[in-house]
C-alpha cells in the first residue's frame, strides 16, 4: 500500500475520520441549539419548540434554513475582508480543536489498527489551548470590522475576558499535568482507564477549569461579549445570514469541545469504570468508549445550559475581580499544593 512513499491507507483513514468528526460536530452543534431551547423551556415550565416535526425535532433544520435564506448584509463602513474573516476564523478555530480529542480506543479495519483520534500529537493540550485562544480573534476581528461602537466594546470585553481566564485555566491544568506527566490527551485518558479519574486528585483544579471554560465559551454568567441588554447584540450585531450562523454555531461547537476536553482530562474520557479495562474485543471497546464519552459530554453540555438558565450575568468589574483576584491565586495555590504532595509521594510519604 505504499506508493510514492505515502501510506495511502493512513491518508484515507484520516480523511474519513476528519469528515466524520467535522460533520458530527456540526450536527451536535445543530442539535445543541435545539437542546438549549428545550432545556431553557423546561427549566422555565414551558414546552419549548414543539412544532417542527415530532417533538420539534426538525427545529434546528428550520432554523438553519432560515439563516441561510436571510439576506446577506455587509455594512458600507465595515472592513469587508475582515468582516468576512471574523466568522470564518471563529468557526475554523472551533472545529480545529476536535483534531486531538481521543473519541475512543483503537479499532481494527481490514487488518489496520485505526485510532479513533485524528492526531495523537504529544502536545495535545497545548494545541487545544493554542487553537482555543485563536477563537477569540474571531470575536475581535468581527467586532472591529463591523465599525460599530457596540460591537467594538463587545470585542474588547471578549478579548480581555478570554485573556484573563485563559491564565487561570492554564494554571489549573499545570497542576493536572504534573500528576499525569504527559501532554498527550490519549495518554492522559489511558492513565485513567482502570484507575481513579483525575477529578479525585484535582477537584479544585476541575472547578477552576470548569469556570474558565464557561468564560472561554462566552456562556452565562460570562457572556459579556454578547450582553444583549447593554450592547444590543454584542460583537455579531452587524452580522446577518450564515455569517451570524457561523458565530452562533461556533459558540455551540466550542461548548461541545470544552465538554469533551473536560470529560477527557478529568472524567476519564471514554473510560467506563470497572468495564472498559475488562473489554477484550477492541471493536466493542471502541463503541462502548464513544457512547460513554458522548454521555459524559451531553451531561456537561446540560450543566452548561442549566447554569445559563440559572445565574445572571456578572458585571464587568466583578468578572475581572473574579478572574484576576480569585481564580489565578486559587489556581496557583492549587498548583503548589499538588506539587507538595507529588514530592511527598516521591519521598514515600516522609517529610
Amino acid at each position: 500500500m505504499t506508493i510514492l512513499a505515502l501510506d495511502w491507507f493512513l491518508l484515507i483513514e484520516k480523511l474519513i475520520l476528519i469528515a466524520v468528526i467535522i460533520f458530527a460536530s456540526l450536527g451536535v452543534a445543530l442539535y445543541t441549539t435545539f437542546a438549549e431551547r428545550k432545556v431553557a423551556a423546561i427549566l422555565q415550565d414551558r414546552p419549548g419548540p414543539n412544532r417542527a416535526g415530532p417533538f420539534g425535532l426538525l427545529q434546528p433544520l428550520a432554523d438553519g434554513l432560515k439563516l441561510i435564506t436571510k439576506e446577506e448584509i455587509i455594512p458600507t463602513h465595515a472592513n469587508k475582508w475582515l468582516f468576512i474573516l471574523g466568522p470564518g476564523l471563529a468557526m475554523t478555530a472551533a472545529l480545529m480543536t476536535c483534531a486531538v480529542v481521543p473519541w475512543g480506543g483503537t479499532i481494527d479495519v481490514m487488518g489496520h489498527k485505526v485510532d479513533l483520534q485524528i492526531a495523537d500529537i504529544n502536545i495535545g493540550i497545548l494545541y487545544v489551548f493554542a487553537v482555543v485562544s485563536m477563537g477569540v480573534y474571531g470575536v475581535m476581528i468581527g467586532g472591529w470590522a463591523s465599525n460599530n461602537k457596540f460591537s467594538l466594546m463587545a470585542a474588547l470585553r471578549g478579548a480581555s475576558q478570554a485573556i484573563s481566564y485563559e491564565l487561570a485555566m492554564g494554571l489549573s491544568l499545570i497542576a493536572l499535568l504534573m500528576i499525569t506527566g504527559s501532554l498527550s490527551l490519549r495518554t492522559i485518558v489511558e492513565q485513567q482507564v482502570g484507575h481513579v479519574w483525575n477529578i479525585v486528585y484535582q477537584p479544585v483544579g476541575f472547578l477552576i477549569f470548569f469556570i474558565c471554560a464557561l468564560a472561554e465559551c462566552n456562556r452565562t454568567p460570562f457572556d459579556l461579549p454578547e450582553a444583549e441588554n447593554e450592547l444590543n447584540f454584542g460583537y455579531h450585531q452587524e452580522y446577518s445570514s450564515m455569517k451570524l450562523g457561523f458565530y452562533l454555531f461556533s459558540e455551540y461547537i466550542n461548548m461541545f469541545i470544552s465538554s469533551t476536553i473536560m470529560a477527557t482530562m478529568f472524567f476519564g474520557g471514554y473510560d467506563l469504570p470497572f468495564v472498559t479495562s475488562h473489554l477484550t474485543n477492541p471493536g466493542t471497546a471502541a463503541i462502548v468508549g464513544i457512547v460513554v464519552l458522548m454521555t459524559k459530554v451531553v451531561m456537561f453540555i446540560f450543566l452548561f445550559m442549566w447554569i445559563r438558565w440559572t445565574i445572571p450575568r456578572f458585571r464587568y468589574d466583578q468578572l475581572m475581580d473574579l478572574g484576576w483576584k480569585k481564580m489565578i491565586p486559587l489556581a496557583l495555590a492549587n498548583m503548589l499544593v499538588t506539587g507538595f504532595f507529588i514530592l511527598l509521594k516521591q519521598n514515600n510519604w516522609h517529610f
Partner: protein
Amino acid sequence: MQALTNRAKQVERAPMTFIEQLYLWNIVKGMAITFMHMFKKQPTIRYPEQKREFSPVFRGLHVLNRDEEGKERCTACGLCAVACPAEAITMEAAERLEGEENLYREEKYAAKYEINMLRCIFCGLCEEACPKDAIYLSETFTPADFNRKNFIYKKTDLLIPNPTTDAQGFAAAKGLN
C-alpha cells in the same frame, strides 16, 4: 418610624458570611431551584390542539342573526353604527320589495353591511345597541389573512346559515347543539 402596615420587613444588612462570599454555594442553591422546575406542571395550553375555555360573555367575531324561518333580523336602523366607538360598521339600507318577505323580517333591511375587523375593538356595544337582536359577538377569534381588504367583513361573511337550507349550520351557529 411607625410602619403603616404589618407587612414591612426589616432589611438585613449583616455582612456576608464566608460561604456566601464564596458565591458557589448560592449558585448551587439557585441551580437546585431551577432543577426542581423541571418537574413542575406546565401551565401552557398547546393552542391549536387545546383551547382555553371561554367565559360565557366572551366577545369574538360578529355574526348577523336570522330568525327561525331564516329571515334576516337586521332592519338597518344604524344604531349599532352609532354606538360603535371605533366606527367600524357601515351599512346601506334598502326597502323590502313585494315577494321578499321570506328574506327579511322587517320592511327595511341592510342591503350592504360591513364591519372592519381591523378597526373593531370587540367591545360589544353594537350587540347592546341592537333593538332587533340582529348582531351578536361569537366565540370565533384570531382570523388571519394576507390582505387587509379581506378583514372588512361583508354580509356574506357575517350572516349565519339559513335554517331552511342548512338547518345544521344554523343550529351550530346558534349554539343549540
